[in-house]
């Protein structure tokens, strides 16, 4: 480890993950996709943070940047730091990165159908990670891989089978087993349940919460399902057009919503008490990430938008110690959104 990294290791290191002003762009021949724009996140040990937002908001790019796995070209990390246990992932050498990936931080990928290598058995694929990071022989690694399989609820003897012999839900469990194989400190779960049907979803969620409790893993849980967030997350960050527009504890976001976009997300949920109520989707579409507006990216869809919203770049404002919102309307102390202090059980 070089001197710089040692400097970053503070003895009272509490944050497993710290993202500082991260900006990720995809530079194409005649346009630049501004996928992640100047975001900052802190995550403490043993906590689960939900990263919420509609598709294309930059959630997956954020997670890939944490692993320093942004496909390059065309991806470019323009600026920022990503500290995992105090080490900056963006400054590590290739070899150090290979050591950290899979052991300190690992990722559950979104699409289980394509995330497993079709020509290796699932056992081999889980064992590979163990063999690399725990320096044990293949036989011991295979034994551990079988343990991991039974942990995620797959009979260990199926380790000798290939991915095409598994159903989608089973494959997702294998992907989870690979990610958890070396007890990472930080787990990035990119919509781990989106590809699954509802009954399997519940099982996978239970599994992940159990694992968090057993191994004290911190997690970034990427999803667009607010129900899942309410169920398992401690903290929530809402992403829109590459920015985190509101973040705080679960209570902050769900019960003291501040940002009009977050409000829109809640409003577009079906109401279980009033099934005949019409759904209220947010009108319009997310702006084209190749030409983001100068001011608030949500302004064109925002029911509260004022002329200055479109012009002025937004800054993050503190609502409380834990709750931050990126909406210039709150510079006017009397500004309120409609959704106020709704309490969920």
């Amino acid at each position, binding site marked *: 480890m070089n001197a710089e990294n040692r400097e970053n290791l503070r003895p009272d290191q509490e944050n497993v993950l710290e993202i500082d002003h991260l900006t990720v762009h995809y530079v194409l021949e005649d346009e630049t996709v501004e996928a992640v724009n100047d975001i900052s996140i802190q995550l403490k040990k043993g906590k689960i943070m939900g990263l919420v937002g509609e598709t294309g908001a930059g959630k997956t790019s954020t997670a890939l940047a944490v*692993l320093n*796995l942004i*496909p390059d*070209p065309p991806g470019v990390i323009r600026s920022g730091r990503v500290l995992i246990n105090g080490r900056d992932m963006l400054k590590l050498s*290739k*070899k150090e*990165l*290979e*050591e*950290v*990936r*899979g*052991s300190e931080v*690992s*990722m559950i*990928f979104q*699409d289980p159908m*394509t*995330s*497993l*290598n*079709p*020509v*290796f*058995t699932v*056992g081999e*694929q889980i*064992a*590979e*990670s163990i063999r*690399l*990071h725990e320096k044990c*022989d*293949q*036989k011991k690694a*295979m034994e551990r891989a079988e343990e991991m399989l039974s942990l995620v609820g797959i009979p260990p*003897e199926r380790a*000798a*089978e*290939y991915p*095409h*012999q598994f159903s989608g839900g089973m494959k997702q469990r294998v*992907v989870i087993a*690979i*990610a958890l194989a070396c007890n990472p400190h930080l787990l990035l779960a990119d919509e781990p349940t989106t590809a699954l049907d509802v009954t399997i979803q519940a099982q996978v969620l239970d599994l992940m919460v159990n694992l968090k409790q057993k191994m004290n893993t911190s997690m970034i849980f990427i999803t667009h399902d607010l129900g899942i967030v309410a169920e398992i997350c401690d903290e929530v960050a809402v992403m829109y057009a590459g920015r985190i527009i509101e973040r705080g504890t679960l209570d902050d976001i769900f019960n003291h919503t501040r940002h009009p976009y977050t409000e829109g997300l809640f409003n577009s949920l079906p109401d279980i008490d009033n099934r005949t109520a019409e759904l209220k989707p947010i009108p319009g579409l997310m702006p084209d990430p190749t030409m983001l507006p100068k001011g608030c990216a949500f302004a064109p869809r925002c029911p509260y938008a004022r002329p200055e919203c479109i012009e002025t770049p937004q800054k993050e404002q503190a609502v409380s110690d834990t709750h931050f919102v990126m909406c210039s309307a709150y510079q006017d102390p009397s500004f309120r959104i409609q959704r106020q202090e709704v309490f969920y059980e």
Partner: protein
Amino acid sequence: MTKYIFKRILMLIPVIIGVSLLIFIMLDLAPGTVLDIIANDYSPEQLEELRHQLGYDRSVFYRYGKYMWDLVHGDLGISYIYKTPVWDLYMQRLPSTLKLAGASVLVSILLSIPLGILAARKHGSITDNVSMVAALLGLSMPNFWLGLMLIILFSLNLGWFPSSGDTEGIKSLILPAITIGTGLMATLTRTTRSSMLDVIRSDYLRTARAKGVPEKAVIRKHALKNALIPIITVIGTQMGRTLGGSVVTENVFSWPGIGRLTIEAVKQRDTITVTGCIIMSVIMISIIQLIVDIAYAFVDPRLKSQYSTASKRRKRIGRTPEVRANGT
């Protein structure tokens, strides 16, 4: 798996029968028989006797049937030009052709797979463009021209390698192997590149990288094994083609192989030798295709598992870790 191999072997039979029948009839349609050429050496009675012996007084299908029956017994007939059995002629030339085919395919594999991988990894870069232009050059250069150029440079001017024949071992093998290998290399490099490009951005390679697999292993183990099927197909086709004898290159280098035997036989209207050489080539190519098909099954488990039962599979794969641990 045994069932799969057995099935593939059975499928060879109709292919060989079909192709050889076609060849046999086509060569038979050519005007004149071997009897016209050797007419001066025999008396009319002997010729009449030979005509009956060779079956020219019966239909072409009778002769085909007789020919195939003899073939099964290792008899390809007797060349009346060389006055020796065709089987012996063929077997005499086969080692040289095998040597040349093996060496040139090896040259092309060793050069083009790394080059193709490199081009795919540096997709769109100068390295990529240069290797693709090189591949295109190799593809468009005619073999006879490249062979002559190599002879002029390395045999006549530098005197490093012999210009013809198969008498100096490896030394005489190098120039013809490069000549054929260059032509093969072009196709194989392009196939490797496009097949690797398909795989290289796939989600499962991202999974492997996220596990902390070193980049070299990501490419060599995870990507290459997935990209192998088209590569094996091309290698198989090329191997088959060169085994049939590279007529042009063997002639340029006076290489004593099947290709030259065939051409000489054609020139002397030695139909029986031509037929023998072509039918043997068909069989060779079929066998190579069989090997390719079996290789597919070992590369792609989706194919293999169609032919093995779950319990067998478990037993077999359950053993692999130990085998592999010893092997590495």
